[in-house]
């Protein structure tokens, strides 16, 4: 340790930190997990809070849930409006998932199996909807629908969602395709399978996890999208838009209950999906 004494105090501190790196890293990691989960836990806890306004704990009650699920309006949250917004969200998400999974998977095949002039540029365009800020995408679609004279509504929202979800699906499926052993397909054909049979019994089963992950991602992206939808849905509501307008009015037990329900349901669905598929993304 004699060499350490002629180093600067900072260097000595540094080497001591690095010597205990395992414990420090574990502590820091634990703090980050706390940071990620404490807000969610507090939110869910406050939805059971027996107080109309306060943000501090006043006792346990399920009163707000009971009232909302019984169809009573709780502190500015109208259950009918919430329900119809939820139905709209699901409708848009289902249409979006079907179209973007089919189109996106085909696109992934094209990008994986063909070389064509302008492929790099085309791939760039495919990545762009993921990268550009959603506000730019939402507003440009608003201008476009305005110019071609399309009435805004659920259908325009679905069109916009498909435009960004195609890219997400294509990239997830493409990742799967690139680690795909093509000799399996050749083997199937050598053994007498025609193209359709090969696709049905070899290619598709191997791609399924990728396609499932893509579909789930597309559903989550569409279901959760606020910014793009906000500009192109006209005077219709989806759950995020309905929720946004509630949040802007302030924190109330009703909003807490809706928020807790949304978060428990979405995290539950994803947890189940990850149980089957392993980590997605």
């Amino acid at each position, binding site marked *: 340790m004699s060499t350490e004494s002629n180093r600067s105090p900072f260097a000595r501190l540094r080497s001591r930190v690095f010597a205990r790196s395992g414990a420090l890293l574990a502590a820091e990691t634990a703090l980050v997990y706390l940071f990620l989960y404490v807000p969610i836990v507090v939110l869910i806890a406050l939805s059971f809070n027996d107080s109309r306004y306060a943000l501090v704990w006043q006792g346990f009650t399920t009163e707000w849930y009971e009232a909302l699920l019984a169809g009573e309006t709780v502190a500015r949250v109208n259950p009918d409006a919430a329900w119809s917004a939820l139905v709209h969200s699901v409708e848009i998400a289902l249409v979006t998932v079907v179209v973007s999974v089919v189109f*996106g998977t085909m696109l992934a095949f*094209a990008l994986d199996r063909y070389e064509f002039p302008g492929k790099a540029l085309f791939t760039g365009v495919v990545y762009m909807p*993921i990268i550009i800020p959603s506000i730019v995408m939402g507003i440009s679609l608003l201008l476009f629908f305005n110019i071609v004279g399309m009435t805004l509504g659920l259908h325009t929202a679905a069109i916009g969602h498909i435009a960004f979800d195609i890219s997400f699906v*294509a990239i997830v499926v493409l990742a799967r395709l690139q680690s795909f052993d093509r000799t399996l397909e050749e083997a199937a054909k050598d053994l007498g399978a025609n193209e359709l049979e090969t696709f049905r019994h070899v290619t598709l089963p191997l791609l399924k996890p990728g396609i499932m992950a893509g579909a789930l991602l597309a559903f989550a992206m569409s279901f959760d999208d606020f910014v793009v939808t906000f500009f192109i849905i006209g005077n219709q509501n989806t759950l995020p838009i309905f929720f946004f307008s509630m*949040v802007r009015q302030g*924190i109330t037990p009703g909003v807490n209950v809706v928020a807790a329900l949304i978060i428990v349901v*979405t995290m539950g669905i994803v947890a189940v999906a990850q149980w089957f598929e392993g980590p997605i993304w």
Partner: protein
Amino acid sequence: MASEHNTRERGEPRSALLGRIRRNRWTGLLVNVTPSAVWLFLFFLVPLAVMFYYSFGQRGAFGEVLVAPEYLGLQQYRLFFVPDDASVFEAIWFTVAWVVEAVLPFGIELAAGEPTPYVQLTLKSIGFGLVATLVAFVVGYPVAYYVGRVAPEEYQDLLLVLIILPFWASFLVRIYAIQILLSGNSVLTNALGFLPWFQAGQSLMNSRFAVLVGLVYIWIPFMILPVYASIEEIDFTLREAAMDLGATRFQAFRRVVFPLSMPGVVAGSLLVFIPSTGAYVIPDLLGGTDSQMIGNFIANQFGAAGNWPLGAAGSFTLMGIMLLAIAIYQRYGSADLA
């Protein structure tokens, strides 16, 4: 595919033509690419082009949008970037000087004027993006290192899932959760009362701090995941070798491990910087009047302020920042996005 196959087996004359079409090497490509290409062209590229066109338009005296050819010009960009009665050169100098003045701690005056409020807002948004990225890096890198390297093998998948899980939970609900924690009299603000300069129960909302917390909270998984992917791939015998050759732990990390994890760091920084700079909802819900960002400005121009051409010019300025960031990424990074 089914019908093509059947027609060939039935041996009708048509099948020869179909077979030829099907065997053509472009057919498969065209069939697979066309639906997505048409969709992306119509509902992504054309709208962007429309917006680009609008950014050269003007606003009429009664708030109407003038985009006929005779009105087109760079006036919105000039309004955006160049202060009244300043030259382009002066505008650039004012901008540079403004940034230097903001970064340097002492109150010096370098330039005779200031950049336009729009440029100030844009720079402020970039500042938010950079600080959020830096915080996400400083906080997220050790987590990625721990999960990828230190944590026991059998827990790695679980730890990863726990990082991804919040990303799948509703974005708006999580912002709302942050809002709850930062509000006056919340669990957190009351608990922070022991801090000497902090009065218990004081609201932290509607501030730059709140916006930054929101940005980091939402985007930190995007930093951790690519860094984790990079660290996972590193051959740690290289680190042992460095230490055998006399490097201290710190040197081995700085000279060997960290450079090898750079692709993940660059990818993660891009994935945090781009959405943070273009944020709209987070500053809207968590920020006050001094912490609105360029996304809010754009939305406002298309809403209450009703100046569509100026909003379009703002959008393309934001797009320019994104493209610049991606160009830097392609120059220095090599990991795949996402």
